[in-house]
């Protein structure tokens, strides 16, 4: 099924931004400005959203114009016919498409099902959500988590591409695994050359400290950028 790979979900939602302005700033530019004001890494609101592997916002201003292909036998034929009538030449030119509005794009790869994720997102950062989506068409009807879920589902696209740097395990599992890997490297480096008994004892202390079966702590924090 599209959007799902194992336990991972790829969400891409396009929310149309209202046409028009606040004073001399368009709604879309205002949203853009608010996005630029968001923190990154530890300070990103998305670091607070449970189970987020990788997420991003951006503004889709318009679609790109695809110019004439370099070599196409059919077009060349029409090109030749243009010696009779110019409309043959015009027929070969690609149409210029435009969007009816600019879009706020929210793209997130996460663990679990969509509704649970969006409910968690609402509960973690609903103030940020309201501020980011404020100028999107029909968002003023969103009052609670269920309303947000319905809204995002209406904006959702089919997505088939997933964030490569992640498995489909829960975020806690992955962050703990990352933490354990780093700690184990440090352990291996700082204890090389010890005898078996000494090494075993050191390893026991190490395991007690890092607690591999306890996901909550110690671990790598979501969004953490510096060890």
């Amino acid at each position: 099924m599209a959007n799902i790979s194992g336990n991972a979900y790829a969400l891409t939602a396009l929310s149309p931004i209202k046409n028009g302005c606040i004073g001399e700033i368009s709604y879309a530019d205002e949203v853009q400005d608010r996005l630029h004001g968001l923190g990154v890494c530890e300070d990103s609101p998305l670091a607070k959203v449970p189970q987020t592997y990788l997420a991003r916002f951006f503004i889709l201003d318009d679609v790109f114009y695809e110019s004439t292909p370099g070599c196409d036998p059919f077009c060349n034929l029409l090109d030749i016919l243009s010696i009779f009538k110019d409309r043959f030449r015009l027929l070969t030119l690609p149409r210029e498409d435009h969007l009816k509005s600019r879009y706020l794009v929210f793209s997130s790869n996460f663990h679990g099902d969509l509704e649970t994720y969006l409910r968690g997102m609402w509960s973690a950062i609903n103030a940020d959500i309201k501020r980011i989506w404020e100028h999107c068409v029909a968002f003023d009807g969103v009052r609670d988590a269920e309303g947000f879920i319905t809204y995002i589902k209406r904006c959702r696209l089919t997505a088939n591409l997933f964030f490569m740097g992640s498995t489909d395990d829960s975020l806690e599992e992955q962050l703990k695994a990352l933490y354990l890997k780093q700690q184990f490297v440090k352990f291996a480096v700082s204890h090389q050359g010890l005898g078996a008994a000494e090494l075993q004892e050191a390893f026991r202390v190490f395991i007690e400290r890092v607690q591999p079966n306890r996901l909550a702590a110690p671990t790598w924090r979501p969004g953490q950028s510096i060890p």
Partner: protein
Amino acid sequence: MSKRLDLPDIQGNIIRAYGRFGFPKGRFFFLRIDDGDRGRAFVGTITKRVTTSVSWGPPPKGVIPKPEAPINIAFTYNGLKALGLPTASLAGFPQEFIMGMKKRKAILGDDGPSDPEHWDKVWAEDVHVAVSINAQTPENGQPLEYVEEAYQWVKSRIDGSDGGVVLLTGHRGDDGQEDLPFQDASILYDENDQPCAKEHFGYTDGIGDPVFEGQITDEHRVAGRGKLTREGGWAPLATGEFLLGHPDEAHEYPPAPAPILLSRNGTFMVYRKLHQNPASFERLLDAHAESFPGGRELLAAKLAGRWRDNGAPVVNTPDTASKAAWDQRFAAADERTRDGMLADFRFDLMGDKCPIGAHIRRINPRGSLEFGQEGAYDTPGALDDRRRILRRGLPYGVVRDRGRDDGNHGVIFMALNTSIERQFEFVQQQWINYANDSKEGSDKDVLLGNHDAACPSKMVIHADPKSGQPPYFVDEIPRLVETRGGDYFFIPSMTALRMIAKGKVDPT
């Protein structure tokens, strides 16, 4: 090797690493052009003495006698601008060349002690021109006699430019000087005062210097220095990797400014003064000498990928027993066989012979990035062949006290390539300071990496998985090499030099 290059049009330092051809001394100095007309006249005068790539020796093979002191010249972007190149030509240069080395510091990892604020003062100047002198030593007389002669000749032309050309000062010297007008360099001498190809850490430098099509006629030098073929052989690299205006490994002309006469047979030069910290290096070896199985010298060999005494590739001599056998064969071999023993090898897949993080493996993986996926690319070295650089530098300074890092000693690193960004900068960023390609986590190249005391890196010396032995970790690696200056230069062809001198560069 059927390709014939226009050797009289190509500056001599592109084709030849002078250090290997009996020119043990070097002097590098930098100029600023204050007046376009007088600057162009100066370039015209110097061009008459610039050494080309024609062959030396008695006719018919040789064109000229071997010169005592070859002179070569190169320009920064600002230098070409000062010489009045048209904007349309200037705009055709690659952006990294236009920006210059200082502004690329984030890519190059020039941070902390390598930050441009700590460079020799000359690099705070507006550097326009690089002049290099390489010289033989006279049989009788002062070792620097030929250097000095050539230098005085250039200097008299600078003095005669009536202020149009200014010699920039600000090089650090051996005795605490801060404002020397030139950077001297010299190959090092061994304990018997014999010239050798080593640098200050004791390794033999430059063995794997690449060869490209049209460059040389002695076929035996291709093995280990060219590119790997699917059949397991070696072929010279495409000329366009090192000379503009010729097809490169992607079967394209490398991007170059117009007109073609300006760029063809020219190339780009990376000049870097790299200070070496011998005390830190000795301490690193000492810290692991006892715990590393195999001892201090094997450890040193594993770090670099070559043994320090004779340059033996550690992939073929991974322990003392195999090294002893190799040494015996090496001692009995003729010059050509020796060269093959040093250069012609490939790396082991698992890295238990030559570690994957070893310096010579990181900077030139010799097809080993296929990682056991035989046939993954068109040729085994497809990923490496576009990341090769010609090495044209020399060591500088003398280590008077191996217990100290300060002082004036290191390597004048000169790398030649047609794309600084694709070749030199890629190697520096991705293979020296990052380890994604070598799959070594966040480890950096031991010798050249910008190791950070706050976040010290390590290197893994792999063990044979069948041996049951654990790998060995070299940890707490200090910064062993620090950048002390440098910039990006364009080495024009002789034709281009004459055009620049005449103000006749026309991109239309």
